[in-house]
């Protein structure tokens, strides 16, 4: 155990704040006192060990989330009235009422009942999205990241990932499909997206199960999935029609 004075001086030297006089004193002591030298070397090893702890890259979504939170676009491009169904948010909030745009009290009640059944009975609710209307993200506020054309077992349309004021999002644009067309989003990531919206004409159904979000599509529909989780660089989308499955990966970062 060395004198605390030397210990303090060692730390000041390693922090680069020792005065020239103190440094000269310390180095003189180091040359003559093996205990002080051992303490100095130990502190050097400690500093080296901490320095070698790897610094991690932050998730790409950190910057995006911050900019979306502060940006003017974020305030201008909230979904149009009637377009939002925050399924996972509702689950997370344990059925505490959340703001829903003018889609109506009837829909909100239906959603709450569906979620309650989900919790009580342990199986998938069917969320009635009838009656929702309004466009999702104005084109000028949407930056496309990836796109895939769907032409598969009679299902036509496109998948499109992009950045919006709501962060990374996915459009599923079905122009035509036989019934039933089941679209599973976020395979392997149960809550890959927490927000789901549907454009008119709302003749599809959205449900939640263990695999994530499922859309049971009838005919022509456009869906918007938002609130991707932090740190996810891409999304795998599985479209299943009957017994056949098509899998696509699309980027969620620039």
């Amino acid at each position, binding site marked *: 155990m060395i004198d605390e004075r030397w*210990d*303090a001086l060692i*730390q*000041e030297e390693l*922090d680069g*704040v020792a005065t020239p006089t103190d440094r000269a004193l310390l180095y003189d002591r180091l040359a003559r006192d093996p205990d002080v030298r051992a303490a100095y070397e*130990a*502190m050097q*090893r*400690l*500093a080296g*060990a*901490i*320095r*070698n*702890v*790897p*610094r*991690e*890259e*932050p*998730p790409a*979504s*950190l*910057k995006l*989330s*911050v*900019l979306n*939170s*502060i*940006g*003017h676009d974020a305030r201008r491009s909230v979904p149009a009235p009637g377009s939002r169904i925050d399924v996972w948010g509702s689950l997370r909030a344990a059925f505490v009422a959340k703001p829903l745009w003018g889609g109506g009290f009837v829909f909100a009640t239906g959603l709450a009942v569906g979620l309650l059944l989900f919790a009580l009975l342990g199986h998938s609710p069917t969320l009635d999205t009838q009656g929702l209307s309004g466009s999702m993200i104005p084109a000028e506020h949407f930056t496309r990241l990836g796109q895939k054309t769907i032409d598969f077992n009679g299902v036509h349309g496109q998948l499109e990932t992009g950045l919006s004021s709501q962060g990374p999002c996915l459009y599923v644009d079905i122009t035509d499909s036989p019934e039933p067309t089941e679209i599973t989003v976020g395979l392997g990531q149960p809550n890959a997206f927490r927000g789901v919206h549907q454009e008119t004409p709302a003749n599809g159904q959205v449900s939640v199960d263990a695999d994530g979000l499922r859309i049971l599509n009838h005919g022509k529909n456009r869906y918007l999935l938002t609130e991707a989780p*932090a*740190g996810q660089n891409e999304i795998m989308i599985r479209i299943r029609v009957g017994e056949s499955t098509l899998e696509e990966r699309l980027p969620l970062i620039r």
Partner: protein
Amino acid sequence: MNDLDDKALVARCLDGNTAAFEVLVDRYQKVLYNVALRMLHNREDAMDASQTAFVKAYEKLNTYDPTYKFFSWIYKILVNESLNQIAHRKPQEELDSAIMAPGRTPEDEVGEEWVQERVQAAIVQLPLEYRRLVVLRHFGDLTYRDMSLALDLPEKTVKSRLFTARRMLKDLLNQRGTVRT
């Protein structure tokens, strides 16, 4: 805009130029995230704390005093945010298993990676008032004065607590036989 200093960027932000804040985010997101990660030892919490710190900083930019360094100021917000998260955390949520890499066999327990993991684990074991000093000094590269501003502590207290923190860290690592001190 990348070549502007922090104070000039803050001035532009206050004029309504949000692109200037993007430069500040680019400049500090990695170091802030890593400070939060070492404070909280959980990636998701570190992401949340960093995000909140940036957003709060933006919202409070008009209260920023340009006689101080911007990064000392935002670290202060981040440290407070991290402490809030720890205060609301259940004990079992303390460690991120992906960072701790538990369940190692004796054969694994060699090499630099193992030492790094032990050092990280020892940092997490430090009491918060000491942990935050080690993290700010070694992961944020803050000076005593910057830490004093970020933590609202006299510089002398920062220095003495940092010394104590390192001694505690040394003892912890000695107990584990990690770093020969």
